[in-house]
């Protein structure tokens, strides 16, 4: 067996790889921010008084968790097109990834909400805080703190899963890889480089979450407890 690797031929295309990596990171960032918001709202909705809201949130979460991401992306892509909305592949990718990661975030956040001791909420109620104030000041941050490692993994996973957006020709990293390898006929080298780039992107994201954790949880920083 003789493996011949020709990296220089592929590395010549580094501007394409760089562009793809940046686009992947942008996709992941936007979908993380909006997915975190959507997921938190859905988790709050699961605990709502209204049965209708509870049911809508549950159906949303279950529908997303039990269908493949690629199918969801196609549904958004062709669905929006069929109602006459012409959006770029990038926008469609952000929307689809948001809907997808929102459902998983909702489940993680729900676990976080349930881990808040009842006494905390009673103490807040005893101080006359409103329902919204209790969620905002007492429940939200400690809940996020409790599930922060799980959230981090979920959002890194989202970044990796964004590779299927190449199917609707969003110009992210995997899409770039597909056309570089068809140009250079160096498929193995191309995907080795792409894999390394994904690892780097994951590290960038984890570092970002670590830094965000320092800002969000000052008590951890002060007391030196690790997440």
């Amino acid at each position, binding site marked *: 067996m003789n493996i011949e690797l020709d990296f220089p031929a592929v590395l010549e295309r580094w501007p394409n790889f760089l562009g793809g990596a940046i686009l992947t990171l942008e996709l992941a960032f936007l979908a993380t921010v909006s997915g975190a918001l959507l997921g938190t709202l859905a988790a709050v909705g699961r605990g709502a008084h209204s049965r209708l809201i509870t049911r809508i949130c549950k159906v949303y979460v279950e529908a997303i968790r039990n269908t493949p991401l690629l199918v969801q992306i196609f549904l958004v892509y062709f669905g929006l097109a069929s109602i006459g909305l012409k959006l770029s592949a990038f926008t469609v990718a952000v929307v689809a990834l948001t809907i997808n990661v929102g459902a998983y975030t909702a489940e993680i956040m729900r676990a976080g909400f349930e881990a808040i001791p009842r006494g905390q909420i009673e*103490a807040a109620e005893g*101080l*006359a805080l409103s329902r919204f104030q209790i969620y905002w*000041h007492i429940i939200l941050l400690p809940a996020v703190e409790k599930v922060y490692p799980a959230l981090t993994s979920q959002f890194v996973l989202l970044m990796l899963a964004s590779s299927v957006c190449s199917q609707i020709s969003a110009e992210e990293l995997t899409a770039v890889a597909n056309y570089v390898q068809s140009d250079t006929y160096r498929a193995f080298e191309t995907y080795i480089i792409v894999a390394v780039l994904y690892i780097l992107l994951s590290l960038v994201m984890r570092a970002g979450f670590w830094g965000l954790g320092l800002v969000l949880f000052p008590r951890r920083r002060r007391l030196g407890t690790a997440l």
Partner: protein
Amino acid sequence: MQQTASSTPIVSLRDVQKSFGSLKVLDGVSFTVERGEVLAIIGRSGSGKSTALRCIDRFEKVDGGEITVCGRRVDLPDVDLRALRQDVGIVFQSYNLFPHLTIEQNITLAPCSVKRMDLSEAKALAHKVLAQVGLEEKIHAYPEQLSGGQQQRAAIARSLAMQPKVMLFDEVTSALDPELTGEVLKVIEQLAADGMTMVMVTHEMGFARSIADRIVFMHRGKVHETGPASILTAPTTPELVQFVGTGNLKS
């Protein structure tokens, strides 16, 4: 208590009924608390004393009877809970400080978000109430950096910052060792001396005897005996005799 306005009780329970499933916890409980009075509710575990206390702040909904707190009918479904809880402070056995906030933030949160107080004003208030409980130097600490006794004193300060008209204490020293219990009781004693109206559920018989104006002894969901603190030394019902006789009367 010379004026008619102050002669209406600040808290009154009349024939209050409460069941958890088939278990009747409160079976016709009635008592009143006057302005400036310290009322201690004592009794065995399961006698309904904590439930009675929690009904005052509507942490439990009653099945029957009337509860009036600061002129508000708490038993009615349309009671303004947030207004009620601005008038009533409650301190729990498990402190329930907010772990992600410093002691100062724990105290300023409610005045700022409920009463719309300026942050600087609220911070000054935090200093004041922390001085009252002797914890000024812990103002920037997090709850987990404090001992149990200090956490409970901080929880009392947090309640005081809302300037309640009546304070409820639900077995606030039950999780503390005797030494830490002492420092918390001292704070409560000072509050009593300052004229705060208080209702406390307690197992500290010596303490109840020394600061309570009146004692309510609960037994099987009923007020079994009530009277001045002297009923602890001269109980008239066999149940109270037995209760204070079982080593509960320590000073």
